[in-house]
């Protein structure tokens, strides 16, 4: 029996022993475990499962054991993932420290920085936020204005970051700041770590059109940041950001499946709704056509993903195809939302009115929230630019 087979069997046995039955049910958003000084566990089972995993470093399976990681090879990590999926084990920890920041710090951080921050990420003791976007920068990230001035042993940071997800819950934030105002855009930017408890840091939530808010604006008013919190070289923060960005896409897609947003099948909801109300059958010839048209395209999108999967398996991946996913997927999602609104009619016009059901509220809230999907993480306009240039080779 090969080593990997041994590893698989041992892992399976270990998971069966340490993952309580309750932690092998599909997870709901409210039971996700996020890190942080003030973290809370939804249940004793959740805490014991988390601690078993983090003790082995399996919250970050491939990270070096020197920093508390699991030290697994890529093959072993894959087996761990497969076995967890097979048993239905919940992810032990949700953290952007795990998904994005940790890998970048491992690549660019000093030994001291790694020893200081990585173990706390693995053990979920510190929750990280991301400070990239600024109110006036939009898609042009490199035009950021938050500045960090050199004051000898520390930087003095002034400015503001927006879309800092759950910043009110975060302990630390990693930021892109301008350290050389005279250099061309991307060349005067550094990557800085800031403790949210530092004097001068404040957070205010952003209310979205959907009424929800997990986003914040974070303000820095004469915030002193020790020099040792600089990651990578001075004015070379863009390189760190690029490394981090590589992990963001992977995270975005895993977030999708993890966030467990309550979604509805277009066809199922249409059948329920159009079928029940006899009067609605009268004017749904057009709606019926729209349902068929959209469902066909959504199937084609699923088939595109499936085709990419088989290409990947055969090591014949077409590098152009991944460039299409975000634009197509988000546009379809918004079309589906609009069509569901049309089908639900006046019951889809609120996420709180007593005249509508939970399902109707959810459809409506999704509709509003999903407007952000064609903006966040690279606007559709940027995606189309990229497709034109990189997939089609159009001159720029």
């Amino acid at each position, binding site marked *: 029996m090969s080593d990997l087979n041994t590893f698989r069997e041992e892992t399976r046995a270990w998971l069966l022993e340490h993952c309580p039955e309750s932690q092998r049910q599909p997870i709901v958003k409210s039971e996700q475990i996020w890190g942080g000084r003030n973290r809370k566990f939804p249940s004793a089972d959740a805490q014991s499962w988390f601690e078993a995993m983090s003790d082995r470093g399996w919250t970050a399976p491939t990270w070096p054991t020197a920093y508390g990681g699991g030290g697994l090879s890529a093959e072993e990590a894959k087996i761990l993932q497969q076995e967890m999926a097979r048993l239905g084990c919940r992810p032990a920890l949700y953290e952007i420290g795990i998904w994005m920041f940790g890998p970048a710090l491992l690549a660019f951080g000093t030994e001291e920085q790694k020893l200081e921050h990585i173990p706390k990420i693995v053990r979920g003791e510190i929750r990280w936020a991301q400070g990239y976007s600024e109110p006036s920068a*939009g898609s042009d990230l490199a035009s950021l204005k938050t500045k960090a001035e050199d004051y000898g042993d520390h930087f003095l940071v002034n400015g503001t970051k927006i879309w800092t997800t759950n910043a009110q819950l975060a302990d630390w934030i990693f930021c892109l700041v301008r350290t050389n105002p005279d250099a061309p855009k991307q060349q005067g930017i550094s990557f800085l770590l800031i403790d949210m408890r530092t004097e001068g840091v404040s957070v205010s939530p952003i209310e979205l059109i959907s009424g929800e808010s997990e986003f914040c604006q974070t303000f820095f008013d004469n915030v002193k940041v020790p020099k040792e919190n600089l990651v990578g070289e001075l004015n070379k923060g863009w390189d760190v950001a690029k490394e981090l960005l590589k992990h963001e896409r992977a995270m975005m897609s895993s977030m999708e499946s993890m966030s467990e947003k309550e979604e509805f099948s277009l066809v199922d909801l249409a059948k329920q709704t159009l079928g029940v109300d006899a009067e609605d059958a009268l004017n749904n010839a057009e709606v019926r056509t729209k349902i068929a048209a959209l469902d066909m395209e959504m199937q084609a999108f699923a088939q595109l993903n499936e085709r990419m999967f088989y290409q990947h398996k055969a090591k014949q991946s077409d590098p152009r195809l991944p460039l299409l996913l975000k634009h197509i997927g988000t546009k379809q999602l918004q079309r589906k939302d609009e069509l569901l609104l*049309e089908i639900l*009619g006046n019951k889809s016009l609120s996420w709180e009115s007593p*005249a509508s059901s939970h399902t109707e509220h959810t459809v409506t809230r999704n509709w509003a929230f999903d407007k952000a999907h064609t903006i966040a993480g690279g606007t559709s306009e940027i995606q189309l630019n990229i497709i034109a240039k990189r997939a089609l080779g159009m001159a720029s």
Partner: protein
Amino acid sequence: MIFNEEQSMLQDTVRAFVQEHAPVADLRAVRADVNGPSYNLELWNQLVELGLPAVALPEQDGGLGFGYMGLLAVLLETGKTVMASPLVSSVAAATSLIQLAGTDDQKSLWLPRLTSGEITATVAVQEGRHYSLSAMQTQLVGGEIKGSKSMVMDLAEADLLIVIAKTAEGKLAAAVLESSKADFDAQRYCLMDGRKYSDLTFTQTSVAPGNILGEGADRTAEIEQALNIATIATAAEMVGGAESLIERTVQHLNDREQFDVKLATFQALQHRCAEMYCQLELVKSAVFSAFARLDRGKDIHKAASQVKALANDYYQHISNEAVQMHGGMGVTDELDVGLYLKRSRVCNQLFGDAAYHRERYAKALGV
């Protein structure tokens, strides 16, 4: 097809008033007061002082004689700031119903109080999820109303409630109830446009013969006409909103720089804005045409469906584009674009969605 001098002056007056006194912030205040009125009563009283409840009716009915084109001038302006008011529920819908379908006695009983602004009225017509006259179930038989109604506007503020129902013969009838005294169940709720609506249930609500418009005569055609007026009035408000959204979006793109150039210089955005502007002027022309037909006494059955279907689809498109082009800030509640977006979806359902009106229009075309 265009405003005469009086109508233009009226538009200027209303524009100045709305821009100064009823900015979008006013709608936010209405929205925040979830148990409060559906519109700012004080602002409405000021519109009453301007004579707006009487704007469309002819002088013999106590009106100011601006014609419905005058009401169009008003709605285009109030639409620009998504101002909440009973202009559609009371002025366009209920007042037209009484004027068109009422007997002389009924008109002289109610019209003076409506045109003076002493009272307001609203109409209960929609049922279930979607507005559809042909699918209407509510019955008015033997002097009693049975059935349920959805999405009734401004009910708590209205003195009169006009219920549209079907007679035993399948004709349309309109019963005028005093909303505070009549016997029915009402559930009041806010929708995402920040205004208040009610769902009603009539188990066995009695109506005196004198409270049925036309007092026994068949008023189906008049009721349909009044609802067509309410339909194009809704569309007029939507056109005002769409126009304001395009202005705001272009302004934003002209102000905002990215990659060292103004966003407005990106050709893809220019073309999309140009397409929106084409849509705006198309639907605006259709709205002007419908109101002009109305004032010339022509049938507006087909025109109403044309105008509402176009307004629904175009405003939906324009509000989506406006949010997208405002970028991240476009999806925050801080910016006003989201309020237009939500208002557009509510308006879509008032007096018929686009599919309903396209179906009705196709029937009118004979295809």
